[in-house]
């Protein structure tokens, strides 16, 4: 690397310095415009058509949306997705945080091994977890029943049909998703806990705060940003549920559509029946729902955080 000497080189140097940020971000902008923006707008248009595969279109106005509102299957799909999202996030986050809190204690032996154990299920994709749990859940001989029946002989008979009984499909799904995702979120919390300034604990201890007060005064505000992040990604993730129920229920929506999710409904209508228009309408409904819910979560947690910061004068980022 030598110092630029002549003016021509200097000019080039200036230009590349000014152009660089645009060049660097250009690939993102280009792919985003072509494969993000265009399809988003296109799907808005497509949702007004009835289609038979990508070749034939018939304009039908808002008929797709009208159909969705009245379709009982769509309602089932929305309900199932909401129920799943609620319960999986409801159990996932406290469990993940609890594990992280324990594992961040220096006196725990074998932390590396424990961390690996809890995280390992996440290394399997949803598709593989689905196939595995599809077998673990079988009645009479499956591992889940063999393990739970002796613990709760009356509540869970040996021939409990987790995946054939419509009221058990959702618990089965939530259980499998917990197995998969608790460890993943635990890693985020662990990272957040490690980043909390240790001096703050020291200061709190000097002030005479017990462990519980330390937790409330130091830990909670310290891990707040990560918690919000985990909450929102976990929620968005559960709204996109598809592989897990679809493969676990043997390529179907399960008994009485108990495992039908919005994305599965979208896939079946768009890519099985070939109605890409209806699929687009479903996609828009899903996107709006996710947007509303995550904005709501942001607002809720954001205002909460602002109040706390007003009281304590925490740092901005």
């Amino acid at each position, binding site marked *: 690397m030598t110092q630029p000497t002549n003016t021509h080189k200097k000019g080039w140097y200036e230009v590349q310095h000014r152009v660089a*940020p645009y060049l*660097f971000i250009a690939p993102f902008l280009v792919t985003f415009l072509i494969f993000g923006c265009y399809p*988003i707008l296109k*799907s808005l248009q497509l949702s007004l058509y009835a289609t038979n595969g990508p070749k034939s279109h018939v304009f039908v106005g808002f008929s797709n949306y009208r159909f969705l509102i009245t379709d009982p299957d769509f309602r089932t799909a929305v309900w199932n997705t909401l129920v799943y999202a609620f319960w999986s996030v409801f159990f996932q986050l406290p469990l993940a945080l609890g594990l992280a809190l324990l594992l961040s204690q220096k006196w725990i*032996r074998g932390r590396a091994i424990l961390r690996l154990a*809890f995280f390992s299920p996440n290394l399997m994709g949803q598709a*593989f977890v689905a196939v595995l749990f599809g*077998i673990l859940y079988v009645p009479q001989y499956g591992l889940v029943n063999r393990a739970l029946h002796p613990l709760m002989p009356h509540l869970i008979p040996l021939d409990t049909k987790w995946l054939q009984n419509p009221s058990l499909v959702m618990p089965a799904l939530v259980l499998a998703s917990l197995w998969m995702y608790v460890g993943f979120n635990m890693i985020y919390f662990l990272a957040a806990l490690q980043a909390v300034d240790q001096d703050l604990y020291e200061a709190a201890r000097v002030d005479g705060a017990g462990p519980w007060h330390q937790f409330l005064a130091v830990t909670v505000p310290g891990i707040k940003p*990560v918690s919000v992040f985990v909450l929102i990604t976990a929620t968005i993730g559960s709204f996109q549920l598809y592989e897990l129920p679809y493969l676990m229920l043997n390529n179907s929506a399960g008994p009485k559509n108990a495992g039908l999710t919005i994305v599965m409904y979208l896939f079946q209508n768009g890519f099985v029946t070939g109605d*890409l228009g209806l699929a687009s309408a479903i996609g828009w409904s899903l996107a709006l729902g996710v947007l509303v819910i995550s904005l709501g979560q942001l607002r809720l947690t954001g205002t909460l955080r602002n109040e706390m910061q007003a009281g304590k004068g925490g740092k901005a980022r």
Partner: protein
Amino acid sequence: MNRDQKLSPGRIAAHILLFAMAVVVLTPLVWLVAATTKGKNDQFHYTFFAPTITAQNFLDLFKKTEVLQRNIWNSTFLASITVLVQLFFSSLAGFSLAKYEFKGKKPITILMLATLMIPGQLTMAPLFELLHRLGLVDTYLGLIIPGAVSVFGIFLFRQSISQVPDELLQAARMDGCSEFGIYWNVVMPVSRPMTGAFCLISFMGTWNSFLWPQIILHNRELFTLPIALSQMVGVYSQEYGMLMAGTLIAVLPVFILFLVLQKEFVAGLTAGAVKG
């Protein structure tokens, strides 16, 4: 922190709880391994391992599904290419956002945040149409190009690169280093933990993805492992041992990668998520 090394009853209870939970979490995986070693008619006669262990499931797997060897390489190819492409473009964009002031930076950042919230399923139908018109359906390009830049990756890199001291960059500029030279010679070498973490995240994402490849790929010779496995579920639904053997083969590489990259992974997430 290390006030006393003694184990109080509370601490012993905590250990018991944690290790018991770890056992519960690992049990399905142990069962999975056990299932691959059991013969067809012994699958449910023994809860875990049978007295005699057989490799028949793996032999059947490769014999009956002639193309499985292909599926493994297909998945490897697709995932590693995707990792490299995403790594390059995402870190470049992250660098741009972290270290430059330029017109349109703010709207672009907001745009990116918005895309994180829009579920990809929204665009599946028109994207399929678009790729169909571009002739990219049933090709790997149809999978690689639309996902060439990972927004999540941009955020990760923006975060880690913003912690690189500006003095380093200025010093390089003094030496006449070009902006890309700075990226290549200065910024990326000090961002290696994040690079490692991102590689793993990106690899796992592609290796395990199912829905979109299932829509785009039609030719059996192009199938990835998850699609091949779901096909096997259809044809050999009776043979759990074989299915589990297929699953094990699909999971093993990710496991090994994770073991190798574990340190970077956690370090990267620490950098990325805490301040995110």
